[in-house]
């Protein structure tokens, strides 16, 4: 999602000093690339450590005796079954099972949860959660934090050298290492990595240490996008929207099986109906033949020239070494190896349905 830039990152001065080129994203003026360029930034993250300023994303603290019940209503999730420190990928759904936003929710304590939401949807998410909270004994507190992602195979080592212990944390776990800090082992690159929300002064102190390490460098939004696309991860607003449901989006793995039948979450009935009929279309990986990228918005056709889908994200995969894309195709065509055709400026580019991810995830699991 792009738009007029209104919000400035608290650390904008650091990015400017690092030579960032800025651009608008989701109402924020964001660093798109640094002098190294998107290709080197992408590869550096896969080989060493990339630092991403993701302070445009929003952290909400949900607390109180009714916090778990509120989450169970808002999300297809069993918040009571989460262990302390456990993080889960989930959604806010509409009554018709459309995806309002995708989120990561972490249980911090018996009555304490952290919700991490997308920048472009933060205002919608907050209004949605507050409206639902009227029926529950729960408090919603948007946090004012700098949010930094530290991603790549050397992330744990570099953080360790900067004095941040990571041993106690495995993939999709999070906790509060200090009163005003939130830290999770998670990310948006397919690599091992961490996301840390902390006050600005603490962030400046930590970043000074991290940037002094030659293994770490700033990575812009352009490489963040190519990294997540290779990793097969959805961008809300492109690959998933309120017009897509979790079944069509291939995200049913995020919804516990027993909740599908009798969960109390909004959108359950509509989702059950979709599952009973079978999703009409499916999100798939797409690999264009040759070097020409196929981009978001391109229509997809079968060999007979019939419109059968669309591309929702597309670009070049620097690690894959070829163009990579994601999109929706008719359910009958959603098999790896199926040949379809993308319309690129009037030319039909052959595209094969491809399994996701394009580059293997390298998470550090327990």
């Amino acid at each position, binding site marked *: 999602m792009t738009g007029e830039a209104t919000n400035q990152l608290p650390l904008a001065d650091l990015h400017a000093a690092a030579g960032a080129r800025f651009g608008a994203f989701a109402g924020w003026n964001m660093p798109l*690339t640094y002098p190294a360029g*998107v*290709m080197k930034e992408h590869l550096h993250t896969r080989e060493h450590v990339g630092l991403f300023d993701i302070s445009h994303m929003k952290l909400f603290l949900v607390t109180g005796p009714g916090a778990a019940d509120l989450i169970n209503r808002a999300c297809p999730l069993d918040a009571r079954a989460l262990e302390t420190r456990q993080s889960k990928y989930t959604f806010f759904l509409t009554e018709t099972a459309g995806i309002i936003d995708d989120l990561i929710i972490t249980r911090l304590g018996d009555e304490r949860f952290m919700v991490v939401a997308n920048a472009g949807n933060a205002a919608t998410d907050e209004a949605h959660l507050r409206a639902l909270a009227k029926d529950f004994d729960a408090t919603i507190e948007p946090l004012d934090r700098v949010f930094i992602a530290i991603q790549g195979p050397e992330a744990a080592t570099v953080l360790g050298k900067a004095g941040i212990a990571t041993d106690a944390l495995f993939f999709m776990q999070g906790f509060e290492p200090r009163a005003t800090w939130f830290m999770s082992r998670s990310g948006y690159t397919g690599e091992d990595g961490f996301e840390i929300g902390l006050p600005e002064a603490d962030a400046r102190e930590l970043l000074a240490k991290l940037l002094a390490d030659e293994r770490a460098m700033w990575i812009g939004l*352009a490489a963040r996008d190519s990294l997540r696309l290779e990793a097969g991860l959805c961008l809300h607003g492109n690959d998933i929207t309120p017009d897509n449901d979790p079944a069509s989006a291939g995200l049913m793995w995020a919804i516990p099986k027993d909740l599908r039948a009798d969960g109390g979450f909004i959108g359950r009935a509509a989702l059950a109906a979709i599952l009973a009929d079978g999703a009409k279309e499916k999100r798939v990986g797409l690999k264009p033949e040759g*070097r020409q*990228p196929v*981009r978001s918005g391109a229509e997809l056709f079968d060999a007979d020239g019939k419109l059968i889908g669309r591309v929702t994200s597309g670009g*070049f995969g620097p690690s894959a070494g070829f163009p990579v894309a994601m999109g929706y195709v008719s359910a009958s065509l959603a098999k790896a190896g199926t040949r379809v055709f993308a319309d690129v400026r009037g030319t039909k580019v052959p595209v094969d349905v491809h399994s996701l991810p394009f580059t293997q995830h390298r998470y550090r699991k327990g």
Partner: protein
Amino acid sequence: MTKTYFTEDHEWIRVEGDIATVGITDYAQEQLGDLVFVDLPEAGRKLAKGDVAVVVESVKAASDVYAPIDGDITEANATLSSDPALVNSAASGDGWLWKMKIANAGQLDGLMDEAGYKAHIG
């Protein structure tokens, strides 16, 4: 004798006799970032000033390159199909995009020289 002209769209045009070689400026390649694909035109294609002649694709986006003058394409830089990054590393040299036969030399008069272009990009 060769003479080089520049457009406000950040292209350079090197003129030798009635043939013009066209590329994008170093400033333009820096703005675009790493190129991964160049959609090259076929020789013989007739261009009118302002037509999209080439599409250059970076990791993130596709950008049009316009014909700065009228004329017929005589050659596209075939090296770019295997090495699009040549536009980044040698924008004003080996990374040229296409050559064209100049149809209307008078159109060159409206373009900038190097000093004018440098002032244009500040």
